[in-house]
């Protein structure tokens, strides 16, 4: 498959008199191939939006190489801009314009046929509200309008930064279906989101960023498999005795609540056999597969101390990274 987005060694440091030097992206790599629905995950301030802005020429990178649809970005981005639909964070629109007029304006500026406006409104579910003023839209409707603006060009690449912001559950589901249908039509989608369950449902590939660096990338099932500890949840009548028996059989086990968690087991029948031989009958034996949320929290260190309020700069670094060299930030609060 051909690369639609390639980022190698992207670096961006923001400097300001008040805040000093802050490294937002530090040697980040990303590869998105044609036809993928690629999830882009990271904690707040990890550099996701800075990366997308750099890719789209809105932020000047300090180093690294980027290409979009085969053209170097941002130098030759204008060549392919007509085939790239993008929303970065929550775009603002004129409150006094109607949704339809907003899209017509963008279509005119971009040299897109006005007939695409109604198609885009239909796709995002705003067909009947297109003549309402934007200032009367809910957050979710504004988000739909933003997605419609990205779809206007009939893009081959769609970059969506937090597209589910403000959407209700039905809206999230519609957005998921929309992305699937676009991907089925050959559109490559790069989507950043905090709703990890959604990413796991929609995306076939994922890249996780933490403090400006890539901490995981690949097919979603492969990333999950890489963090599978082969754990099983076991319910028995006497958990403490069961733990002792499993330890005697050289298995790792611990009581958690009213059940046991046994780890490092590739064949679960071993558990049944060891306990059954001693008259302890297993009531439940459930494999504990990692989900994207647990992998994300593990990789980014976001779930290490749930009782302590986590600061945005507390995310984990990839193994071997120099902690002193990286100070992460929420770029929206920084003077560039």
């Amino acid at each position, binding site marked *: 498959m051909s690369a639609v987005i390639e980022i190698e060694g992207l670096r961006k440091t923001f400097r300001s008199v008040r805040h000093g030097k802050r490294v937002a992206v530090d040697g980040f790599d990303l590869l998105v191939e044609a036809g993928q629905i690629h999830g882009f995950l990271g904690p707040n301030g990890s550099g996701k939006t800075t990366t997308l802005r750099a890719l789209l020429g809105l932020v000047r990178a300090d180093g690294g190489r980027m290409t979009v649809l085969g053209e170097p970005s941002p130098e030759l981005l*204008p060549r392919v*801009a007509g085939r790239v639909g993008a929303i970065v*964070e929550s775009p*603002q629109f*004129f409150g006094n314009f109607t949704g339809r007029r907003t899209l017509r304006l963008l279509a005119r500026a971009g040299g897109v046929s006005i007939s695409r406006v109604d198609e885009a409104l239909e796709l995002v579910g705003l067909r009947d509200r297109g003549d309402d003023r934007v200032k009367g839209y809910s957050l979710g409707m504004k988000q739909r309008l933003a997605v419609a603006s990205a779809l206007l060009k009939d893009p081959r690449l769609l970059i969506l930064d937090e597209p589910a912001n403000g959407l209700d559950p039905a809206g999230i589901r519609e957005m998921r279906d929309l992305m699937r249908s676009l991907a089925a039509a050959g559109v490559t989608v790069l989507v950043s989101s905090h709703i990890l369950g959604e990413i796991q449902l929609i995306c076939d590939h994922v890249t996780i960023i933490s403090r400006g660096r890539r901490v995981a990338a690949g097919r979603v099932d492969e990333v999950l498999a890489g963090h599978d500890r082969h754990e099983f949840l076991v319910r028995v009548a006497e958990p403490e005795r069961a733990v002792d028996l499993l330890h005697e059989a050289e298995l790792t086990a611990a009581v958690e609540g009213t059940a046991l968690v046994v780890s490092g087991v590739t064949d679960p029948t071993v558990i049944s056999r060891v306990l059954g031989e001693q008259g302890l009958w297993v009531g439940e034996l459930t494999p504990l597969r990692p989900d994207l949320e647990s992998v994300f929290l593990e990789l980014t260190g976001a779930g290490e101390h749930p009782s302590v309020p986590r600061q945005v700069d507390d995310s984990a670094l990839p193994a071997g990274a120099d902690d002193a060299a990286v100070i992460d930030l929420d770029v929206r609060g920084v003077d560039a």
Partner: protein
Amino acid sequence: MNLVRAELERLSARRFVQLMVVLLALAFAVTAATTLAGSHRPSEAELSSARTQAAEALQGMEATHQQCLARQNSMTPPGETDDFYATDCSEFDPIRQDRLPIAADYLPGVFSFEQQARPLLYFLIAFLVLFGFLVGASYIGADLNSGGVVNLLLWRPRRLTVLGTKLGTLLGTVLALAVGASLVYLATFWVIGQTAGLGGRPGDDFWRSLGAIHGRGLVLVLLATALGFAIATLGRHTSAALGAAAAYTVVWELGARLVLEIVDARRPDRLMLSSHIAAWLNGKVRFWDNQLCTSSSGTDPCSGFYSLTWGPSLVVLLVITGGLTVAAFAVFRRRDLL
């Protein structure tokens, strides 16, 4: 061309622009209505009396000039000036006056287009300068602040093209509005003068002079528009331009002027932007500076006046506006848009 059309639509849809146009129309309507209500066509008797008074005033000026010359040539001792007559009698010479008394000066309650066209045009230019500055600043300031520019750059990732199109569209729109408004404005008062005031047809010199002021005024409107746009672009916000204008007025035009007077600086007015604006609009302005006469000997006549003319003043205005505009484009080209 599509981008220009889109920008035109955005500009015309801005509430602030619409509000300023309404204010312009309102100011225009109020001025025209009060002028119309306060004016009447003069009777023959009023006209005759006014002509007589104007002739007498002219004779008075000639007499004063002659008396000054006579006293200067024969009676005033060297090195001594009369309390009443200046050292330079040409100040009283009617030929050298900017304007001579005319009948319209002695017709109270009668609107004279020939006499009032200049101040009326100055008022309109002042409003249009304010309009251009505020609209220029808010047009780009609001767009930068709300993310509208980012939205546009996602469609047209050419920064200088986008900013240049915005500025060009803005200048074109403001120019069209200023030309249209001023022509309608002058035509309205011309009709008021002809129908409810002192009629008559001004000469070519009048129209040439009025046209020159009009043309210079339009240039000033465009410069103010570009200045507001440039400062707001540099400061990323409309308020940056408003703050810069307020700060300049208070700190430099008021504060620095006071300090320069205290330290007896020579020709402080030439350092003020307002002086150059006046010189550009009028063609020439004269300022008095006591410091100019401190070095002259007692026998040399020293009026203490110096002038600013439109040429150098235009250069000053162009350098400031052009410099800030170039800086705005240079900064915008490299700026991180967050």
